[in-house]
């Protein structure tokens, strides 16, 4: 009898194990997707049989994102009886793996909020976004932003938010060293020299050439030398003379000892920490730096006299080139899951709801980002006067060429060039090699 029971137990174990690998729920059959961790959906109700299910995967920008989406889902579902929305907020560390796994298993989300999109277009996975957004909502975006998601004349994604970069400087250090805020590369070098002479323990200039964000440094210097990743017709021009000059200038700052000691390993966050501690005089950073520094001071109970007095200004340029701010933009895209007309309508309703001016500005302010719609921009600027100059900057900044399929390779490639150059490599040769590799 005992053996029989044991055998039965073993069989149950085996069967339950086999059941673990069970099939996935259908795409449009609610309640969909209820078992995922991080899902902010309310428990699926039994009466949802006729509802249209929308599955969203969204990037988790910070600690407030998950709660914001949970509230959004509650509001949306209570005001849309025929739609069952679920939103899964996934951290940036995992989102690419999660999405790729879902795509590979034919379980792509209906709507995805992420930064990249060209790879999904290359695999014919997306729907043109204009088909999935109402005309009123579509008209709200800055044109320049929409253009960033243009591949072969089709717009594939809409921006959900943006951030922009500027040069931050420590007023106290610059004043003490007798330095004006630099606007050109020559002035920057002279300022670094004076700061170094004033106090050698202070790093005059911060540079981040790490795997995390080295491509940003590349963009700051080439854009402010009047150059770009591509020419006007979209061909890669990585080894352009102006690019070589720009990177040589940046590497020169490191070699002259004007920067943080290890640009290949010190991320922007390390620089922000040094800046907040008054050990770094100037750095280029995003609009979220004030929030970051204030949070750090609050966490460490830093007394007011130890807190730095700082401001931001345009990024210095070479000679008379106009100063260019670097913009970073994330997007919403819609996967082509064979949607019915009702579902497309439901998706449109989702976007209308999300981009309602008040709700949208709340979304943007929630983690200290910048809006991608002009109406949102006005509300944000009115709500927080310190954001007003940023809203202006973001309307005119340049973006990475993320619409090009080679961007992922270019991004890693320019980081590699910078790091090789830091080790003594020849910038021109390195960029020529990269150009040959990318452009073929």
């Amino acid at each position, binding site marked *: 009898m005992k053996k029989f029971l044991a055998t039965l137990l*073993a069989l149950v*174990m085996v069967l339950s*194990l086999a059941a673990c690998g069970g099939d996935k729920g259908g795409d449009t059959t609610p309640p969909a997707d209820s078992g995922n961790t991080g899902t902010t959906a309310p428990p699926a109700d039994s009466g949802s049989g006729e509802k249209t299910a929308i599955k969203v995967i969204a990037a988790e920008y910070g600690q407030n994102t998950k709660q914001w989406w949970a509230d959004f889902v509650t509001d949306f579902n209570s005001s849309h009886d025929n739609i069952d929305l679920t939103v899964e907020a996934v951290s940036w560390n995992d989102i690419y793996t999660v*999405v790729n796994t879902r795509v590979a298993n034919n379980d792509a989300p209906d709507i995805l909020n992420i930064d990249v999109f060209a790879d999904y277009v290359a695999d014919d996975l997306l729907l043109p976004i204009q088909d999935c957004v109402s005309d009123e909502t579509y008209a709200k975006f800055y044109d320049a932003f929409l253009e960033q998601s243009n591949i072969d004349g089709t717009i594939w994604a809409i921006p959900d938010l943006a951030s922009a970069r500027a040069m931050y400087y420590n007023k106290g250090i610059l004043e003490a060293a007798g330095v004006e805020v630099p606007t050109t590369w020559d002035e920057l070098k002279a300022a670094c020299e004076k700061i170094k002479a004033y106090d050698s323990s202070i790093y005059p200039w911060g540079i981040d050439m790490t*795997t995390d964000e080295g491509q940003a440094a590349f963009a700051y210097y080439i854009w402010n030398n009047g150059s770009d990743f591509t020419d006007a017709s979209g061909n890669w021009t990585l080894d352009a003379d102006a690019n070589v000059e720009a990177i040589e200038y940046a590497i020169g700052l490191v070699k002259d000892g004007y920067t943080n000691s290890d640009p290949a*390993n010190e991320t922007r966050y390390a620089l922000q920490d040094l800046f907040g501690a008054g050990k770094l005089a100037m750095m280029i950073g995003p609009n979220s730096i004030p929030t970051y520094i204030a949070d750090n001071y609050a966490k460490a109970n830093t007394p007011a006299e130890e807190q730095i007095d700082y401001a931001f200004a345009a990024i210095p340029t070479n000679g008379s080139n106009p100063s260019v701010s670097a913009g970073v933009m994330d997007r919403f895209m819609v996967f082509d899951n064979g949607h019915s007309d009702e579902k497309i309508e439901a998706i449109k309703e989702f976007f209308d709801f999300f981009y309602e001016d008040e709700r949208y500005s709340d979304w943007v302010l929630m983690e200290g980002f910048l809006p991608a719609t002009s109406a949102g921009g006005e509300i944000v600027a009115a709500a927080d006067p310190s954001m007003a100059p940023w809203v202006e900057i973001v309307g005119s900044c340049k973006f990475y060429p993320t619409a090009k399929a080679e961007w992922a390779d270019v991004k890693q490639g320019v980081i590699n060039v910078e*790091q090789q150059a830091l080790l003594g490599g020849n910038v021109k040769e390195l960029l020529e090699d990269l150009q040959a590799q990318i452009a073929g």
Partner: protein
Amino acid sequence: MSTKTPSAPAEAQELAKKVPRLSGSKKLFRKVEPYIWIAPSIILMAIFIVTPIVKVFQLSMSKVTRAGLVKGYNNFENFTNVLKSPAFSLVLKNTIVWTIAVVVISTVLGFMLALVLNNKFRGRKVARAIVVFPWATTLVIQASAWNFIINKDYGTLNTLLMKIGLISAPVNWTPTPGAYFAWEIACGIFVTIPFVTFCVLSGLQSIDASYYEAATVDGAGYFQKLFSITLPLVKSSLTVATVLNIIYVFNSFPIIWTMTKGDPANHTDTLVTYLYKLAFYNGKQGEASAVSVIGFLILLVCASVYMIYTLRKGDDDL
């Protein structure tokens, strides 16, 4: 007692009657039974070990798009791409240096520490507990702590040396990629020593004291005893520790990833961090799988050499 005794033969008789009736199904059950018991383990292994290995081999020979779609076999293109890349030889060299340096140095130091801990002294238990600490801490925490110690700007090493007056200005402890790699190796050694120490210690404790007494009577010195008694007798534990260490260290990811992410320009990358970057930063999952297969084959060769070696020596020796 008196009531039970007579009933015992009766039960035995009943059982004896039952046995021939059940023998057919029982025989079958006896045959099947072991498989049922090991089935859960086999299924778990198939799901969590065999399937991923097969999948990696499959991916390594497939074209995988950045969005994660597998677009059919592309023969060995992923392998040729990986082997052609100038970074690969550097990464392979780093992996070999990393594995040999960490395994050899931690084995020597761990062995010495085990000899010390095997002596009887006051506080021996506390000392043994302290040795376990690095082992019991998460590698990411360990690596972050090391990074914090050696950092030029706010590192504790510089602060300490400045406080005691040995240096007047902060020293950059990681001026070159080589220096950074050396610190990573040091961290690797630090966290590996406890494992070696405890393997060797268990071997040392099983050595009969009479061997040493006899050797002492014969006039053997410390080193004679060490090389003629201790080493041969702990060799088996040492071999197991070394082989496991080679596999662990070769596949170790957290230390290097936390300290340098393989930067600058792959100069501190090992195969594991390199393939992680290929897969999750460059979106080249096919090539990342190819690197993974290459690593697997290298370890397979090492393990096979070990297996052949131990089989030849026979069970008596090991």
